[in-house]
């Protein structure tokens, strides 16, 4: 009754193909963005920024990048942790080695170098498909692990192998307090989200999806598989690289190569699959799920334990977290293999016909 398109007639193709064709959607998204920029800083305390919001924003960005490659173009990649590492260390090196390097430029340079590495490790996708490709992308992950550990130049020859950055500012504004970090990450996410959405609804997005769905037919209508796949790797790695740079600079402040291990790659893939493959919204949902879940479990397992009357050790909590996490992933995949985005669109469908059942 509230969520109807009655009376919303489009009189131009432009209007028909906008990102949110339904007026209610436009209002809702505007309200959400406004709330995110203005409302949240008024309501939220420091812990929430550091523990949930900032990781959520940065990992959403990374999940967005991974979704472009895996969800839209159909190339399963397990190397995203490595690309994040490239982004972080490349940004670090440009930031630290070049005097007066603006932060934004450093972050973008991280993305740029991640793109180069991404294209290089994407070349096998021209010959190799499916699970073979997935395992081959692990080569990228482990090679990056090794490179940042062993090649001391990358870490500015620090004895410990870890690096740190300080004194971040953008256009004169410092990025120090949690609120500032939050607004910065939010802005980056909104900009990249918009660019990504434009890409996936445009010609290149259709090329990616064509390659994903049936690459022989795509070749016959004139799409070059090489260009489509490598551009997917390029765009995806760029976004993931920038996210990696943000993770190191803004969220961690100081990091070592192990921060971008293969577990990060798996976790990004979880986000994308649970959130919904081939969906921009899905990337956000998935990131939220994976960021919030461990914290949720951390709070509730001791609670449950005390309710049921037994003492839980920290070791047990961490083991139980593993178990619940694993079980939840499996349960979710059984119940909705297309992810949270599908549940969301089903919900909207129900809302459209409410109060009627169908």
């Amino acid at each position, binding site marked *: 009754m509230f969520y109807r398109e009655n009376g919303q007639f489009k009189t131009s193709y432009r209007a028909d193909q906008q990102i949110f064709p339904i007026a209610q959607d436009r209002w809702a998204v505007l309200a959400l963005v406004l709330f995110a920029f203005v409302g949240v800083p008024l309501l939220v305390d420091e812990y929430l920024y550091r523990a949930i919001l900032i990781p959520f924003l940065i990992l959403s960005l990374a999940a967005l990048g991974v979704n472009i490659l895996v969800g839209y173009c159909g190339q399963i990649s397990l190397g995203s942790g490595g690309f994040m590492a490239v982004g972080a260390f490349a940004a670090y090196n440009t930031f630290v080695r070049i005097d007066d390097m603006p932060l934004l430029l450093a972050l973008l340079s991280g993305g740029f170098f991640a793109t180069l590495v991404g294209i290089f490790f994407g070349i096998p996708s021209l010959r*190799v498909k499916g*699970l073979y490709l997935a395992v081959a992308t692990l080569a990228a992950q482990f090679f990056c692990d090794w490179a940042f550990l062993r090649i001391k130049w990358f870490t500015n020859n620090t004895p410990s192998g870890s690096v740190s950055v300080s004194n971040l500012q953008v256009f004169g504004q410092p990025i120090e307090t949690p609120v500032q970090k939050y607004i910065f990450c939010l802005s980056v996410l909104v900009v990249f989200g918009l660019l990504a959405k434009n890409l996936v609804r445009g010609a290149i997005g259709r090329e990616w999806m064509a390659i994903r769905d049936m690459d022989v037919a795509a070749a016959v209508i004139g799409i070059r598989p090489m260009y489509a796949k490598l551009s997917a790797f390029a765009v995806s790695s760029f976004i993931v690289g920038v996210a990696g740079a943000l993770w190191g600079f803004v969220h961690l402040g100081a990091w070592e190569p192990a921060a971008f291990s293969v577990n990060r790659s798996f976790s990004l893939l979880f986000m994308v699959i649970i959130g919904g493959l081939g969906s921009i919204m899905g990337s956000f949902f998935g990131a939220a799920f994976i960021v919030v879940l461990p914290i949720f479990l951390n709070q509730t397992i001791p609670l449950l334990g005390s309710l049921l009357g037994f003492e839980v050790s920290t070791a047990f909590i961490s083991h139980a977290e593993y178990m619940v996490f694993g079980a939840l992933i499996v349960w979710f995949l059984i119940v909705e293999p297309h992810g949270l985005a599908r549940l969301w669109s089903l919900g909207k469908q129900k809302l459209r016909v409410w109060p009627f059942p169908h």
Partner: protein
Amino acid sequence: MGFFLETLIGGLMAGMLYSLVALGFVLIFKASGVFNFAQGAMVLFAALAMARFAEWIPLWTGLDNLFLANLLAFVLAGAVMFTVAWLVEYLVLRHLVNQEGATLLMATLGITYFLDGLGQTVFGSDIYKIDIGMPKEPLMLFDAVFEGGLLVSQEDLYAAAISATLVALLTLFFQKTATGRALRAVADDHQAAQSIGIALNRIWVIVWCVAGVVALVAGMIWGSKLGVQFSLSEVALRALPVVILGGLTSVPGAILGGLIIGVGEKLSEVFLGPYVGGGIEIWFAYVLALVVLLYRPQGLFGEKIIDRV
């Protein structure tokens, strides 16, 4: 020259162990099209079970004989793995028939996390020993040909022998028995196999049980070498390049792949490593597999993926 041969032999035997883990992957993939990331967790789980049972059985039964205790532990651990296999099929796989590869992969990743957590909860998270009586002193072979002889680890030799026997038995099982034939039919085409009356869920339980036993043997051997600890589940990541090098669907591929990777890793570590800063074994196997894939995108012996329009 002697040193080179030593390294080579060491590599071959390490490779045999990789093959053993890779075999678990290949078996499950062949029969169900599922890439079982949880194989590593299964190795750890099985090893934990065996290690702890071996400890607890003397306490429960007062049995003194090491050999009998180990045997009972092996059987009990095997039973545990069978239960795990049955539960995985019943709770997970049955509901995910016909889903795409990425979803199944993620599901097995979920199972990995679950098994890791469960294993450590039930069996504990310290480092445990498995003592199956493998001799630890190295052998000196061929000392007539090479001065001082070649240093060969006896333990590795036994491990290689056990692995080879297991592989031979499995190959016979697949090729010569009716169940093996059914497994191959299911691997080829689920729906076609169903249509001729093969009960998919029964087959899957069998396959996961076999994979579970393979995991147990692998866990036993690795555990006896390195001790049973959490990092054992990482052994899956070491075996993955073997699987794709050999081809996801090929048992001989898993063996050959294992040997190639084992030898390659050892040789590169010793002869190449010092020039590039060392520690290259974390990526060497993967890059080697990647290079092979560029020439044969389906692995050395894998089935060619044919796209039809």
